[in-house]
C-alpha cells in the first residue's frame, strides 16, 4: 500500500493553477506576437509585458510560500531516476518563471525602449542600453521560451502519468 500523500496547501494549489494559465497564455502570446505584422501584434505585445511582470511577482510569492509551506514528499516507491527528474524539472520551472520576465525586462531596457505597461505605467530600465546585452538577452529569451514550453509539456505528461498510470497520489496533491 502506498501511504496517502498529503496535498499542497490551498494557496500553493491556487498559485500553481493561476500561474499555469498565465504562463501558457504568455508563451502562446509570445510566439504569436513575433509571427504577425497585423494590428494584433501591438495588442499582443501590450499584453505580454504586464503579464510577464505579473508572472514575476507571482513566482516570487510562490517561492516564498513554497519555502514556508514545504511540499508533500514523492512516493517512496518512485524509481530514483524519476525522483531526480521530478526534482530537476521543478527547479528548472521555478528558475524559468523568475528568469524569463527578468530577461525580457532586461532585453527591453538594453534595447533602449521605454518599459511601458498597459495604462501607461512606466517601469525603470534595469540595464543600460547596450547592443551586446540586447542581442544576448534576445537570444536567451527566445531559446528559453521554447525550453520553457518543452519543460511544461514534460511536466504535463509526467502529471498525467502519475494521475492515470501510477495513480500514486502525486497528481491529486496538486489537483485543484
Amino acid at each position: 500500500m502506498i501511504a496517502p500523500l498529503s496535498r499542497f496547501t490551498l494557496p500553493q494549489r491556487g498559485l500553481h493553477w493561476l500561474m499555469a494559465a498565465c504562463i501558457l497564455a504568455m508563451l502562446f502570446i509570445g510566439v504569436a506576437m513575433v509571427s504577425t505584422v497585423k494590428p494584433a501584434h501591438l495588442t499582443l505585445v501590450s499584453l505580454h509585458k504586464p503579464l510577464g511582470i505579473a508572472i514575476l511577482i507571482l513566482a516570487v510569492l510562490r517561492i516564498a510560500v513554497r519555502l514556508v509551506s514545504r511540499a508533500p514528499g514523492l512516493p517512496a516507491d518512485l524509481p530514483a531516476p524519476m525522483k531526480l527528474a521530478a526534482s530537476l524539472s521543478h527547479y528548472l520551472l521555478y528558475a524559468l518563471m523568475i528568469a524569463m520576465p527578468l530577461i525580457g525586462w532586461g532585453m527591453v531596457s538594453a534595447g533602449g525602449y521605454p518599459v511601458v505597461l498597459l495604462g501607461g505605467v512606466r517601469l525603470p530600465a534595469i540595464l543600460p542600453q547596450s547592443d551586446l546585452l540586447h542581442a544576448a538577452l534576445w537570444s536567451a529569451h527566445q531559446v528559453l521560451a521554447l525550453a520553457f514550453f518543452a519543460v511544461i509539456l514534460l511536466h504535463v505528461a509526467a502529471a498525467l502519468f502519475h494521475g492515470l498510470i501510477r495513480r500514486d497520489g502525486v497528481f491529486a496533491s496538486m489537483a485543484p
Partner: protein
Amino acid sequence: MPNPLAPRSTLGSLVLIAAVVGTTAAAFAYTAGWLSPNRLTPARFVAAFAPPGGPASGHRRNHAKGVCFTGFFEANGAGAALSKATVFTRGRYPVVGRFNLGTADPTVVDATVRVRGIGVQIKTPDGQEWRTAMIDAPFFPVATPQAFYALLVASAKKNDPAAMKDFAAAHPEIGNFGAWAKSAPFTESYAEERYNSLNSFVFTDPAGNDHVVRWSLIPAAQVVTLSAEELGKRAPNFLEDEIAQRVAGGPLHWAMAVTLAEPGDPTADPSKAWPEGRRTVEVGTLTADKVIAEPDGPCRDINYDPTILPTGIRTSDDPFPAARSAVYAVSFDRRTAEEGDYPHTAQEKQK
C-alpha cells in the same frame, strides 16, 4: 489495490497523454506560424528588404544610410488642445534624430535614392517618449502592409518585367507614387525636405475627445531644387556632408504641423492624401543643432518604432504602424546581434 478510479488500460492512458501533449504542441506550433509557411511574418518582411547580395550586416534593414542629429522640440502650446501628451505643453524637450535614405544599402550614392526620411525621438521630463519616422513622399506607395510586401517581392524580380506590371494592375494606387517619384524635384539638403508621418494616429485631448491626425515637419530653410544633371555631379555622400556643414553655420528648423481628419477621410490608407484645406495646427518647432556621424552617434542604437508614443497619442485604424513596429523590431534584433560588423569609429572601419 482498491482504486476509486475506473480501471483503464495503461496503453489507453499513454495514448491519452500523448494526445494531450501532442495537441498542445501542435496548437503552439500553429500559433507560432511554423505550420503556415505563407504567413506574412516580420522575418519574411525583413527578408524582402534585402538586396540580392544579402543585407548589410550591422545596419538597419531599410533606411540603412543615415546620419544622427541632436536638438530639441519646442512646443508652442497649441497642440495641448488636441492631445494631452506632455510633449505639447509649452516647453523645450530634447531630441535625438536621424536623417536617412530609403535604401537597404548603407554605402549607396545619395543622389540615386528617391525617398529621404527623418527619425525623431522626443523625450519629456515625465519619462514619456515619442518616436516617429517620417519620409518626404506626400503619400505611401501602397494601401496595406501586405501590398507593400508584394511590392518588395515584385520589384526584386528584375528579370521579370511582368512582375511589376501585374503588381500595378492589382494595386493601382502605386500610380500616384510612381508619378511623384518621376516628377518631384530633388532638393539639395536634408534641411530642405518636408517630412510626413503618412500614417494616421489618434490624439486624445484633455476632455477625452479623440482626433485622428497626421503630422508633417515643414522646413524653415529655403528649398533649392537640383536638376538631374546637378544632382549627378554631387559627391556620393553629399547629403551627410552638406547637413554637417550647414548645421555648423547655425541650427536648422522645421515647423511641426498636425492635420486633423474629417469624417470620411481615409485614415486607414496612407497611400491616399487627405483633401486640401483640412484644419492644420502648428504645434511647435523641431530644431537640429548638432550633426553626428552614425557609427558612434546617439541615433545608431535607437529603433525609431512609430508605436512608441506618449500617453495622449495612440495608433489609429491605419495598419502600418503595427506592421512597422513588428518589422523594425526584427531589424533591430538582427543588427544589434551583428554590432561587430558595423564598427563604432572610422578608424576601425578601415581595418
